[in-house]
Each structure stands twice: as C-alpha cells, then as structure tokens.
C-alpha cells in the first residue's frame, strides 16, 4: 500500500475507505439494513492490506454507518486505524446543543475516545433562501461550534480538524483566508481539507455544472498552502467506472488488465498533495480491484494525463473530433468516409444539433438537422456504422484520433436518432 504522510508525519494509506455505501441486506422485518457481517469481513480485509483511513458521517447509511463501522473497527486495536467523521448538521437545526449532541453521539457510535479527522460536513451549500456564506455562518460560527471544536482539538479529542467542500467557491476562499489569518498569528487552522476531485472535475467541473468548482483550482489552493487533501468522488459518483464503451476501449487498449476505475484512482493518487483517496467499496471485488491499484500506486505519466483529459472532454460534452480533414486515413478499405463522418458530426456539434433527450423541446429540430445533413453528405455505406474497427487508419492519423471508438460513438448516436421512427 502506497502511503502519504499525515499532518504530523504519520503514515496514511493513500486509499481510504468511504463508509457511505456499505452492503445491505433485508432483515426479518423486511427492512433494508447494513449487513454487519459483510462489513466486518471488508474492514478486516482492508486493515490487513494496509488501509488505515475510514471515512464516515452521522448521516451516512441512514444514520447507521457510524455504528456499524464502529462495531467492525472496534474489534481491532485503536492504533491500527484512523477514523474520520463529520458534523453533519446541515439538515438538523443549527443550534449548539443539537450539534454537540451529534458530536458526542459519534464517539459513542464509533466506540472511540478520540476522533482522528473531524470535518465540517459539506460546506458551501445554500439552504432555502439563505446564501452559502450565511449558511456557513449559522451552521458553525454564530452558534459557537467552531470555537468549541478548536477547543476539542486542543484537548486532544479531535486530532485533526478540516472541512469537506461542495459548492460555492466563495465559501472555500473564505475558509482558506481564515486559515491564512491564523497562520499570520502563528496558529494553524485546517489540518486537512476534503474536496471532490476526479479527472473530469479537474478542469471541466464548471462545464459539467455551473455550480461546481474545478478541482484543479481547489487542489492548487490547498497544495500551495501545504494543506493535505482528501479526495472524495474520485469516480464521479461511479460514473467513471462505467464509461461509454468507446472511452473504456481506449483505456483497455492502453492497459488491457486495468479497470476504468483504476485509471480514475491513479489520476487522484498521482497528485503529491493528496493524503488519501476515498472509495466507497461496497463489495469485495471493489476492494480487491482498488487494492491492486494502490499496492503500490503506479503514478500516471504525462501521456496518461493527456489521454484522461481527452476522455474527460469527450465525456463532458461530446466535443469536436479533432479531425483536420487531411485525409491521411483514406481510403478506408471498408468504404467509410472517415473525414466526412467527422466533419458532419463536428458540424452538428458546432451548430448545437446534438441532443439525445427526446423530452427536450429542441430535440426534434436537432434530430431533423442531424439526419438531413447526414443524408446530404454521406451515402449509407460511407457512414460510421460500417466501420469494422480494423484500426488501419489510426496510425495514419496525425491527430491521434481514436477513429474506431469515435466511429462507434457517432454510430450509436445516429442509431439512437434513427430508432426514433417519428417522421422527420
């Protein structure tokens, strides 16, 4: 297991266990509950293979995660694991009493007398008509919880204090500015910070959603200050483990035995400022696959980063195919008009005629434009569906376009439009 140095120089496993997605079973009353037996087995296996960081929260697993995780971990010496939990008061009332009650309950559920990593859970969000700064103020500062937690850290019941961030950059900047102020006075504030990071959100979080902040910025700001970074959502909610076929194919071509998920983990792990990468491993297979990735972690090369960048771009918005119409790939022995297919597709992308959502009011117009322009530019036998994937063209392409994979993506999209049998 590859390890990083924690805030005080101790070893922390680069793979951390996210305890939000524990396996469940249906109990005698027909209720879905966490399967303690399986959790025990997973935790044992994880500890045995060097995972030391376990991340939970009072609200995970419908409020059961802390207790179940505590049950599993307390069967091992306290020094063999570190535990992270959070002040999840975003949905309860924001009084100090309620917050302290939640804090104390974590100790009880986890069966510990100190907590290694304690986080202000999910800062940056809004609530009702309160803006993000107001929510931050009311959740942690006006009620005195912030001061309380600093004292708890001094008392040693919290070893490291941090926050997990989701949402508005203003809050992130504000909390780091506070950190800088503390530093000027010779103190320190944040021992670590947890952010959402993966190869799509690295540069394209804002493209994906207006509300997100690019991980490159978040990570950069933290690394600059030397604050260890804990990574959440390295798989973008599992989506990067289940990539579109053409993207997955590219990764398999590069390293046949490696899962798409392993690439996402290696992306995060390759950044030196990362303390640990959290993965919510529900099944033993996930755990095994991740252990294979992290024991030891094989950092990505520049070329790998570039490839993941390209996949991210592809994943986010069906980008333009970087074809320059040089025709070095031609003639295709199977009759596909390769540059013709790409230029038609690019034209539709540029004109905003790629729309897969049949409910979208724009869909019908986009479908018509796409298919009309297809009929104008390519005859049936020259279209993407006739690419057999022989890949003879790939080497000829100076732009290194993964032509067969791109053809399949375009074919899949075209087929989707064609399978809609309503008149044009």
């Amino acid at each position, binding site marked *: 297991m590859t390890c990083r140095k924690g805030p005080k120089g101790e070893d922390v496993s680069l793979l951390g266990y996210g305890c939000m997605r524990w396996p469940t079973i249906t109990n005698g009353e027909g209720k879905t509950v966490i399967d303690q037996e399986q959790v025990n087995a997973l935790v044992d296996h994880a500890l045995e293979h060097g995972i030391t960081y376990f991340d939970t929260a009072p609200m995970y697993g419908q409020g059961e995660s802390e207790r179940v995780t505590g049950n599993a971990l307390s069967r091992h010496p306290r020094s063999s694991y570190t535990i992270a939990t959070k002040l999840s008061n975003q949905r309860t009332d924001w009084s100090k009493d309620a917050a302290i009650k939640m804090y104390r309950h974590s100790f009880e559920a986890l069966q510990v007398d100190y907590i290694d990593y304690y986080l202000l859970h999910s800062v940056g969000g809004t609530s009702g008509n309160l803006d993000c700064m107001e929510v931050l103020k009311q959740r942690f500062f006006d009620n005195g919880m912030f001061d309380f937690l600093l004292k708890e850290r001094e008392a040693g019941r919290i070893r490291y204090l941090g926050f997990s961030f989701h949402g508005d950059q203003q809050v992130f900047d504000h909390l780091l500015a506070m950190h800088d102020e503390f530093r000027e006075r010779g103190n320190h504030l944040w021992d670590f910070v947890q952010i959402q990071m993966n190869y799509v959100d690295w540069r394209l979080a804002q493209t994906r959603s207006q509300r997100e902040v690019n991980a490159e910025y978040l990570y950069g700001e933290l690394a600059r200050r030397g604050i260890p970074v804990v990574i959440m959502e390295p798989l973008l909610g599992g989506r990067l483990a289940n990539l579109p076929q053409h993207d997955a194919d590219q990764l398999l071509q590069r390293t046949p035995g490696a899962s798409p998920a392993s690439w996402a983990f290696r992306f995060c792990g390759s950044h030196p400022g990362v303390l640990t990468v959290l993965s919510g491993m529900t099944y033993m297979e996930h755990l095994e696959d991740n252990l294979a990735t992290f024991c030891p972690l094989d950092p990505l090369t520049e070329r790998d980063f570039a490839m993941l960048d390209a996949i991210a771009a592809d994943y986010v918005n069906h980008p333009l195919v970087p074809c320059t119409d040089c025709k070095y790939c031609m003639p295709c*022995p199977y009759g596909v008009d390769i540059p013709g297919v790409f230029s038609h597709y690019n034209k539709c992308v540029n004109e905003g005629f790629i729309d897969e959502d049949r409910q979208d009011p724009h869909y019908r117009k986009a479908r018509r434009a796409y298919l009309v322009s297809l009929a*104008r530019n390519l005859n049936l036998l*020259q279209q993407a569906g*006739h690419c057999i994937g022989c890949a003879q063209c790939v080497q000829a392409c100076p732009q290194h376009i993964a032509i067969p994979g791109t053809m399949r993506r375009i074919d899949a999209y075209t087929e989707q439009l064609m399978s809609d049998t309503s008149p044009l």
Partner: protein
Amino acid sequence: MLRKIRIVAACLFFAGITLLFLDFTGAVHLWLGWMAKIQLLPAVLALNLGVVVALALLTLLLGRVYCSVICPLGVMQDIVSWISSRRKGKKNRFSYMKEQKWLRYGLLGVFIVLLLAGLTSVASLIAPYSAYGRIATQLFAPVYGWCNNLLAAIAEHYGSYAFYPTEVYLKSLPLLIVAAVTFIVVVVLAWRGGRTWCNTVCPVGTVLGLLSRFSLLRPVIDTDKCINCGVCGKRCKASCIDTKNHTIDYSRCVVCFDCIENCNGGAIKYKARFHRGKENSGQAGHDGGRRAFIAGTALLAGAVTVEAKKTKLAEGVARIEDKQVPPRKVAPVPAGSGSIKNFHTHCTACQLCISKCPNGVLCPSAKFDTLMQPEMHFDKGFCRVECTLCSNVCPAGAIRPVDSPADKSAIQIGHAVVIPENCVAVRDGVHCGNCARHCPVGAITLVPSSENPTVRIPAVNPEQCIGCGACEFHCPARPVSAIYVEGHQVHKER
C-alpha cells in the same frame, strides 16, 4: 352543382392518394393512410368488411361514385380524357356503345380464378388501385424526388434544413416496365374513349356495375323535356347513354354528372328510382376546379425536364462494390405478414409499403409468381425493430398491423445464416464483429473460427434471431455478404 362537387371531391382524393404514394418523409400516411384502406380490392383481400359493406351501400345508394371519386386510376383517366376533349372539335367525341359483356365478365372471371389460385400479383395487373400505385411510385415518384432534390440543393445552398434529399433509383426494371405499359394503355384508352378501361377491363368496375344497376339514385332522362339534341351521349365518357331510346346503362355509368350539366333541355335529373314527380328546368354548367388540374399537370410536365442532382462523392473514398444477392432460398417478408403464403395471396403489389419504407429494405420482387410484390433486401438498409410503418399502411391485409416495437421484436421473420469463408475476419485476418455489434436482439456471438482460431467469426442463435437483417446490411464482405437472412415460410413468435 353535382358535377362540381364530384370534381372537387375527386381532386381531393386523387391529390391525397398521389401524395400518399409520393411522400418519403413518413408523415403523410398519418393523415391520409385511410385513403388506401378504403380502396375496394385491398379491403376485400384484407377481409375489411366494414369498408366493403360501406362501399357496396354507397354504390347501391348513389351509383358508381367510387369510380369517379375514390379510385385514383379512374380520376386519372378523367384527367386524360378531359385534356383530350379540350382539343378542337373533340368536345363531343363520344357516342353510345353496346356493353362488351363477354369481355367484361370474362376478365372478371379470370381475375377471380387467379385470385383463388393465389396468383394475386398477376391478377393485380388489372386491379385499379394497385395499378395506379405502380404508376405513381414508378413514374411520378422519381419526378417528385428529383424536384425535391433540386429544392434540397437550393435549400442546402442557403443553409436551410427545409428540404432534404432522397435517393431516386430504379428498384426493379420489370416493375417499371409493367407500370409504364399500364400507364400507356390506360392513357391511350382514356384519350380515345374516356372510361373504356373501367367498363371493359377493370374487375372492380364490373363488380360495382353489378350493384349500380340497382342504385337508388341515378340520372334519368325526362322524355317530355328532351329535345333530342344528343349532347348527353356525345359528352358521356362512359359511352352508356343511348340517346335514341333515352336510356342509360347504369352498370357502366360512373355518375360523373356531365350529362346533367350539359343537357340543353334540362331533361336529365339525378333522382330516386321510385320518385314520381314533375321535373324542373336545369341550369347551365360552369368549369370549376379545373384550374387546379391545369396547374397540377403543368407542374408535373415541367418537373420532368428537371435534371437529377448527383450525390456528392467525397474524394478518396474507396469504391465499394455492390453486394450480390446472397444464396437465400426464401426472401423474407415483413413482420405482420404471418406467412409467405398469406403475404403472396393478399398483396396487390400497390407499392405503398415500398414507397413508405424509411429504411429502403422493401424492394419489388422480380420473380414471376410474386412479381412486383415487395420482398426484403438488406443491401440498402435493415428492418428496424422500432419501425412498424409497412404493417400500418398495408390496405390489403398482406401485412397486418403490428402494434408496437415490442410486438415486432418478438416476430421471427427469418434467421441469419453465416458463410464463414466470406467473413473478413477469415479472409483479411482483421477483427470485425459488425454483425454482432449491430444485432438488436443479441442473437450473434463471436466465436473462434474452426480453421483459424486466432480470428473470431459470428455464430447465430436462431432462437433469438428475428431476421431484421442488421447483420447483413452491416457486413463488410463483398460481393456476397458473410451473413445473410433466410426467410421463414411461416413467421414465428419468440
């Protein structure tokens, strides 16, 4: 007045049915599909009793209005005859002729025998609706397509998506010849003798004539008012008015009302069989709705002169040879047909389904016993699981409606057969799998070739295969596909 109503109604029907055959966008049938379904012979073959009874009642009530309004071939003859009569001195070009009883009933007999013998496609050579369908799809549609392509080219020039090009190509030479011969015969007969075809050849006309003899309403000559000018007989395109005896042969009268409008003495009235009353004087007629025809005909004539715009071919594209027909024993027929036999005994070869097929799968057959009836070829496309268009437009019950894509995906019209030695994986040593990837039901698995285990070739699970032809269409092997669809005699449900 009656004549004007007849002309307007006929114009609407004729334009509608013609558009139904010419349309390639798949939109028109949603509005006008019923116009094909109310045609008599298809309705009889489809055992569409409601339509048959309604048409019989209509004829018993009003006479053969079917022939002058609903039947597109009849209206086409009226148009030709009208143009012919516009020539100088040809206004009064008809005269009474005796009924050609032997020819009429003889042809009807032959027609029925052919139908009973299952040779529907041969019998359909003289069936009016499907004859018009062949004329429209083979002779008019290319012109329509070329005009459209010209508009599409203009639209493309201005960056508009208002029109898009359609492929105009010869689907079957025998079919084109049959359509052209039918067209020439019908036009010549109409040019010279008006409704000769309808009253001697057409089996539908003969059958309706049997009913119209007894129609409740019919034109009657009032001998008291008749001035014996003979104009009615000279203007009767059905040549059924015996002016000497003041009688009308109602079995041949197509109730066009030309005689009523042209009668100088106002002596001809459209009235009930049992009506006994004094007639009033008639009124002069006037050309109505003819301008629409002049415009329409001019448009068609002008359109012929337009050149087709050739499809652009990108430079550097390899020439891909056309596929040859694979060695299939049974050409599959569309889902909804039930069986090859049901299909061949019901289909009148009207070409409606072929003109509607959005995927270009349906092609007219060139075999004698199924001549001009559609069969499925997979070189231009494949039969999409989602598409049930042909089953919804067929008026003759040859392809019965398939309700949903789910139903269609359960119908096995055939199964794929692999020719391993043709597969590019074996021949060129490349990885392909196009067939398996495009199979909508997952019936194809790639397995190591027995001769060369390093390459993988398709293997078909016939229990899963529905015979859609996606594999055959996408197969890169040429000239003969390495995988092709073999039709089932009787369709199965999986």
